[in-house]
């Protein structure tokens, strides 16, 4: 025992941290480092060479096609985030405040989309939105249109599909925030003469802003990196960053450009998320 006590000690909880840290190091940091290095290498005739270059970035940042891809990706992220917050907030508010005995069931129902695969959900929208789909049939049947409309492939179809798929994330995040608000604050505001509407806008809404920001950031992050929904509802002619990266790496076998595009996406996303978190922190201080 005397010998053992002289050995340097490692706290047991380090083991808990070490395992996930090792997993992240091997499966996240290392592949991303390789990705970063590949983005600075030249590809010739679909083969990666050892020649360093900035050409991949110059190519992506000067071609209108890829600037459009980035713009489309971030517009989709912002639109999906805004739609999900707008739809998710009233739902979360209702689910938190309802005293119905079916509350548990209602919460489960609102989160039900998470139980189905995103591919299955997206194909549901495919059936509805395609030129010969239910939406066109209904509009034609009602006499609202006389020619079928191509709802997809389009950016709008991608926004609809992603907004539906990601809604539960904003509901969950906002519910967490609303649950943390002390009900006495609302009672106090109303006892001082505030109407229910004024109480909501002056007390509840400001206090639930962290939940709104969290939900928005979460949904925005998932939406800008989504692959399956844009691939199905956007097709090869309506590309977003993830489908373009996939195209470079899996179809064109040009890993340099795919890696550079991935790096640009990661950097833009981290910058936007950092800005959003700083903004959130300032709001919290104020």
């Amino acid at each position, binding site marked *: 025992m005397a010998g053992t006590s002289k050995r340097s000690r490692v*706290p047991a909880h380090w083991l808990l941290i070490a395992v996930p840290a090792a997993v992240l190091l091997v499966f996240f940091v290392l592949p991303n480092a390789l990705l970063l290095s590949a983005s600075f290498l030249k590809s010739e*005739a679909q*083969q990666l060479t050892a020649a360093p270059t900035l050409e991949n970035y110059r190519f992506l940042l000067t071609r209108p096609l890829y600037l459009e891809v980035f713009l489309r990706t971030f517009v989709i992220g912002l639109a999906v985030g805004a739609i999900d917050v707008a739809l998710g907030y009233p739902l979360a508010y209702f689910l938190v405040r309802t005293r119905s005995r079916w509350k548990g069931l209602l919460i489960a129902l609102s989160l039900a989309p998470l139980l189905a695969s995103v591919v299955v959900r997206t194909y549901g929208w495919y059936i509805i939105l395609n030129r010969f789909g239910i939406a066109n049939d209904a509009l034609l049947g009602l006499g609202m249109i006389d020619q079928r409309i191509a709802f997809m492939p389009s950016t709008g179809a991608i926004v609809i599909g992603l907004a539906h798929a990601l809604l539960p994330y904003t509901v969950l995040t906002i519910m967490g925030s609303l649950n943390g608000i002390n009900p006495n604050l609302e009672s106090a505001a109303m006892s001082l003469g505030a109407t229910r509407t004024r109480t909501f806008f002056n007390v509840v809404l400001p206090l639930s802003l962290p939940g709104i920001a969290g939900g928005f950031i979460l949904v925005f992050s998932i939406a800008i990196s989504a692959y399956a929904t844009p691939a199905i509802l956007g*097709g090869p002619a309506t590309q977003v960053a993830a489908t373009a990266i996939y195209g470079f790496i899996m179809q*064109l*076998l040009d890993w340099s450009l795919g890696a550079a595009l991935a790096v640009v996406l990661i950097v833009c996303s981290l910058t936007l998320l950092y800005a959003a978190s700083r903004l959130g922190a300032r709001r919290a201080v104020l």
Partner: protein
Amino acid sequence: MTTEQTLNNELDRREFIRRASAAAVVSLGAPYVWGQRTDETLVVNSFGGEYQELFEKNVIEPFEKKFGVKVIHDATGTSSQDYAKIRASKGAPGFDVAAALSPPEVILGAKEGLLEKITDKEVPNLKFTWEKARQTLPPVTVIHTLQFDSLLYNKDKVDRPASWADYWQPEKRYGTKVKGHVINYNPANLLSVYALIHAAELGGGGASNMDPAWALLKSQKPYVGAVVTTSAEAAPHFESGEVWLSPYWSARAGYYISRGIPYGMVVPKEGVIANIDSASVPIGAKNKKLAYEFINFMLEPATQRAWCQAYFCSPGRGDLTDWPKAFMDSQIVTKQQFDSVKLPDLDAIGANRKDWTLRWQEIMG
């Protein structure tokens, strides 16, 4: 904190390293233990969809029966996706036979040294394959079937097309009624590359001058109702009848027509380009001996007859006779027929495919 608590809560460094090492060995070794295969197991990669069922029935099951082995069929991915897996794994993608590679990937595989060289010694039936086609590819693959890019049309909606111009300039032949009923493919699919080469040739160009193709693509765009990447993605558009004109691989076209869709298949007057389907063995394949046996079996006369007639593709060897007349009339089974189809300019395709895809994306995006 007492000494006893310290002993309970802390591990010494050696113990920590010992436990971590054990955990690492178990987690890294587990896939090999769980995924262990015997020598009598072969993993074959090819396509899914209707191809999968026919391939299993006409090639895999007879092979299993003859050799008394188990074949695991990995029916995922397109040719380029399959090659991406080979490249990412440095030649050990988890399958022993890449049974559905197209020429651009085979050429890349030879350049990168990720596919095994194959000779008559490993695959005795190699010597029977179409010689001219064999000479276009590096010796790391074995041609097993041929297809060509036909023109498919909806018989209920439009008259039989005669030229690639009827696809590329549909309004000239069919008027505005065809608007929204033409399908176009991403050049990630070789079918699109071939169709674009036909477009270039219509305007006096070719694989070395694609400018006429881009002009035709721009003029065709308003008439395009569906844009897809893979041939399988196009199938629902044929089933719904919404697509009236499409370039399409002859095998799949023949298969769907045989299933009753109201479409006809045409060999346009300007001709068609052959697509060479071939099989290769990645350098890191676990069961190479059986992989070569499988490729050789694919070229056996009985296998060729069963598979080609089931999938409506042409055989990989030209020495087989006594095909049914209807099959002979629509496929490439004689040297004369083989000489009538164009072989792709693989050097030009390999060198320019990325740029063509980017140009296509800029126009269609």
